[in-house]
């Protein structure tokens, strides 16, 4: 019988088995990454692809060093992070404000509903022509495009979260004498909607990162722009340096966000 052959590990407790499982999946992840790097190195090394078209991973540290030494890397990173940060803050602040307002007020919701339906399907990048006409190819244009992309995501998240606030909790505020809109906003709506708003913000964090790169490809100084410059010189190793830089920065930002989110939502079971 097949059943009799399923060897259970009776000597291991459930928790040590779970730990083994976790170690196993870390090991597999590392093995997969190593295999990826090996294949990546092998493809140009074996001449399957011209190394000019695809540099192997071993070529990357040297390119990275030269970008650091020339000061280009730091300039590109600070440029991108500043568009990103400012655009994110503006888009998120407006998104939360309008989302909360339309979530709390039926009149505001009805008033904006058709405008929202009209503007919402326009992708953030479709604002690039106007961004350039209004602001030129400047950091302001990048900030604008990023803010627009972030706005919609955060607006919908905040609106939905506020609409979903438990009426019973609003009644608690009223029963204890907080009946004016700003009192209910601060005592109930904002904290109750916070989990939903944070979900939107996290999505926006990723979306804004894409918008940064896209806006910079139009010529605004930063990571995306430096990458395009490098590619026009066929410096593919530098292109890869910036691709990896984007991945690393996003990973760090997302982790920091998760830490902040866990702290803000520490009241959740």
């Amino acid at each position, binding site marked *: 019988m097949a059943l009799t052959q399923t060897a259970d590990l009776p000597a291991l407790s459930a928790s040590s088995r779970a730990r083994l499982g976790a170690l196993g999946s870390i090991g597999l992840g590392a093995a997969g990454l190593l295999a990826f790097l090996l294949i990546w190195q092998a493809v140009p090394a074996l001449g399957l692809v011209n190394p000019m078209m695809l540099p192997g991973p071993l070529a990357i540290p040297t390119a990275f060093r030269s970008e650091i030494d020339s000061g280009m890397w730091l300039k590109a990173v600070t440029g991108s992070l500043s568009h990103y940060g400012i655009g994110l803050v503006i888009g998120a602040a407006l998104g939360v404000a309008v989302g909360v307002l339309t979530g709390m007020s039926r009149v505001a919701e009805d008033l904006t509903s058709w405008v929202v339906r009209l503007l919402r399907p326009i992708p953030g990048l479709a604002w690039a022509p106007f961004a350039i006409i209004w602001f030129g190819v400047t950091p302001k244009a990048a900030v604008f495009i990023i803010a627009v992309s972030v706005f919609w995501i955060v607006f919908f998240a905040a609106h939905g979260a506020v609409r979903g606030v438990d009426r*019973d*909790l609003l*009644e*608690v*505020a*009223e*029963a*204890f*004498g*907080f009946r004016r809109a700003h*009192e209910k906003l601060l*005592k*109930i709506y904002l*904290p*109750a909607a*916070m989990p939903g708003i944070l979900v939107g913000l996290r999505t926006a964090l990723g979306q804004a990162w894409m918008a940064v790169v896209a806006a910079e490809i139009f010529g605004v100084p930063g990571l995306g722009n430096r990458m395009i410059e490098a590619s026009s010189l066929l410096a593919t190793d530098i292109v890869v340096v910036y691709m990896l830089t984007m991945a690393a920065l996003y990973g760090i930002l997302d982790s920091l966000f998760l830490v902040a989110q866990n702290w803000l939502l*520490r*009241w*959740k*079971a």
Partner: protein
Amino acid sequence: MESVIDIRGLGLTFERDGRRTEVLRGLDLSIPRGAFVAIVGASGVGKSTLLRVLIGLAKASAGQVSVTTRSAARQPVALVFQDSRLLPWRRVVDNVALGLEGSGLSKIERRARAVEALRVVGLAELAGRWPYQLSGGQRQRVSLARALAVEPEVLLMDEPFSALDAISREGLQDELTRIWRETGKTILFVTHDIEEAVYLADRVVVLAGAPGRAVIDRTIDASRPRHRDDPAHSALIADIRGHIARPG
């Protein structure tokens, strides 16, 4: 005797989507200061609605309701809900302090008063916890502390113990009796549990009928401390049960 709550000819009709539901009609009720009055009635008869009118969450459609309090307190009436309704993002102490915000007290004073109210319900040591870390009985105690913290003259309670297990419920009933005797607050206690009403209150008012009105109003003159399932009360309980089943 001076009454704190005076209800004359109270009527309340909900209107929604053109459909009218008359919940209360011609309700008269006068509650003297310091009384412990239980309101019993079947589910849907309008007990919660009555309390909501008293605390200003709902508006009467007819009649007068007056709550006359002596102090100039910001909040002379407080309500304890059936489900504790703690704000999950506030620690226990800050839940209890909710009603004190906007009272002009500093944050430190508010917290001190909140801890004091928690002490009254025996939970001062849980002040720093989050609501999700409490049992159902503890949550309901916190909810009671939140109402007590504003030092209301009138405490309205809407089936506050009905969601609890028997042991927590009996513990809280005795605690409430003690708090009432120590503070002299007026308590209006809504329940669908007749035994609970008869065990706790000085007076039991039965709401029945559709639209609901007070069908009987009995004073209970048993001495305290009382005994649960006192056979002396069985006739009264049977009488009340009969009125709830067949109003009129």
